[in-house]
């Protein structure tokens, strides 16, 4: 790049930064909103269940049935919101959403326990919240089984030489979903920022009629594109550092891997995000169109990233589509670096994928750009 070109880009970047940052409302959106969002969503994104509203129907009313209920309550996972001796009330509580799980203890529960024939209890779960339902079901099962073993042991009927299953969760020993989710929120917020700031960048100049002015300036299309992307890249990096620090300090998310590896991934990811935003901006005629197109990309990108739903359980075709999704690769890198402490050596396919996506989309945008400007 020649000296004159460098000078032009520098001046243009200055102008872009000034234009972006002069409005206090925009400054708030750029720097304060991501922090608030991280704090809100960091707390919201919790697939661990606690205080699940539980409704009890106890037909037995014995010390044995009360012991079972206490076992549920003592774990802290279940919060007993109501009791009744009529199953109808349980149905109503589930219908209204007052309770998410119902425990029904049949008459004669205590007697079957002591007589040795074995007792059964029923658990009804509101399956409309399938995520929490599955987790709650697991906890409930464990409680009932734990109690069953205690009874068996007390009666001396514990089978010898059975299989003893011991599970341990690596990298996240307490299986806290927050540790897994907060790094992902960081990724999504950064993408949002990149897209927001670039998608409207070029189309805005056109709507305001200032694109003509830029065209008669000595800036070449690639210089213009560079000066549109550099300031956003800078802002996105600042945001990234800002919210990563908050994630680490506030939410106690461990960084087990190397920060430079993280930074490299972030750079590639930001570049990919900017390229996509720029491409949207060059193919759209109005800001409204750009906004809609951006959204059309954003929602599938988040849902098909493995953020909420594991990619391995998606239909095969969708698994292939996710290979084109930069969010997927970035999340894999971020989670692995934050939680497993892995480095570039293990994650190179994701790095390469991110770099390729960034390069291809950037190329497309560069090709489209002169046409957008009417050159």
């Amino acid at each position: 790049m020649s000296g004159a070109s460098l000078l032009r880009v520098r001046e243009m970047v200055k102008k872009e930064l000034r234009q972006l940052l002069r409005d206090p409302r925009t400054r708030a959106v750029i720097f304060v909103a991501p922090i608030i969002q991280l704090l809100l969503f960091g707390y919201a994104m919790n697939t661990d269940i606690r205080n699940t509203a539980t409704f009890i129907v106890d037909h037995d009313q014995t010390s044995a049935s009360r012991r079972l209920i206490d076992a549920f309550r003592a774990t802290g996972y279940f919060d007993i919101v109501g009791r009744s001796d009529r199953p109808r009330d349980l149905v109503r509580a589930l219908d209204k959403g007052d309770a998410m799980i119902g425990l029904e203890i049949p008459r004669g529960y205590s007697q079957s326990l002591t007589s040795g024939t074995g007792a059964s209890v029923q658990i009804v779960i509101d399956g409309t919240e399938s995520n929490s339902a599955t987790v709650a079901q697991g906890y409930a099962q464990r409680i009932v089984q734990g109690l069953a073993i205690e009874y068996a042991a007390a009666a001396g009927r514990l089978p010898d030489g059975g299989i003893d299953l011991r599970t341990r969760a690596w990298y996240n020993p307490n299986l806290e979903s927050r540790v897994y989710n907060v790094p992902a929120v960081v990724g999504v917020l950064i993408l949002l920022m990149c897209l927001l700031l670039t998608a409207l960048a070029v189309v805005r100049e056109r709507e305001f009629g200032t694109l003509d002015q830029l065209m008669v300036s000595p800036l070449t299309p690639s210089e213009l594109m560079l000066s549109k992307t550099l300031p956003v890249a800078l802002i996105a990096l600042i945001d990234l550092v800002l919210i990563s620090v908050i994630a680490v300090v506030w939410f106690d998310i461990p960084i087990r891997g190397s920060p430079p590896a993280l930074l490299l991934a972030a750079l590639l990811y930001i570049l990919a995000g900017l390229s996509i935003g720029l491409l949207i901006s060059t193919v759209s005629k109005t800001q409204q169109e750009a906004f809609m197109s951006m959204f059309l990309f954003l929602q599938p990108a988040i849902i098909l990233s493995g953020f909420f739903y594991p990619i391995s359980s998606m239909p095969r075709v969708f698994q292939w589509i996710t290979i084109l999704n930069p969010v997927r690769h970035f999340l894999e890198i971020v989670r692995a670096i934050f939680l497993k402490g892995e480095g570039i050596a293990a994650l190179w396919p994701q790095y390469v994928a991110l770099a390729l996506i960034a390069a291809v989309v950037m190329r497309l945008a560069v090709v489209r750009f002169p046409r957008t400007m009417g050159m």
Partner: protein
Amino acid sequence: MIVPGLVAVIMSILAAMLTALTIAREWERGTMEQLAATPVHRLEVVIGKLIPYIGIGLFDVVVTTVVGLVVFQVPFRGNVVLLGVLTLLFLIGALGLGIFISAALKSQLLATQVALMATFLPALLLSGFMFSIASMPKALQLVTYFVPARYYVTVTKGIFLKGVGASVLWVDGVAMVIFAFVGLSLAILAFKKEIA
């Protein structure tokens, strides 16, 4: 069983997106003065901006619902009319919110950003669609009461999956009436200030 909730999330984003730019656009293009010079009343402008988008929104609900039923085989156990009425209420509120954002900010860039942040992520994460509200910290549970998608997610899940009726959903219905009223009032207020 995420489809009914997804319908609600898509609608809440779409509604704010449709209207978020509509008034900021008039400001940026300079057509606002023309609009102000006509004898159209502010209320009429807001309603005029609202009605086409209600049509579009309702159409989208029908499309997403049909796709959910046919492609994903989601059961529909409740009352169609009830779903229609509550959807209409929800749309009025959500579209009103979009108009408010647009009229208050007067810049398409800013309106885009605020609309996305105020609707997209909260609808996804704080509505009970992905994460159970009961497991959130108390303070955050309070915040969710201000996320309109929360009520609509309850409504779609209730009607599609549980087949519950007005006797159960009236609480959410009332919340949505309040939301529609607030959304619409904010839109008219923000608009009034500008023209005067």
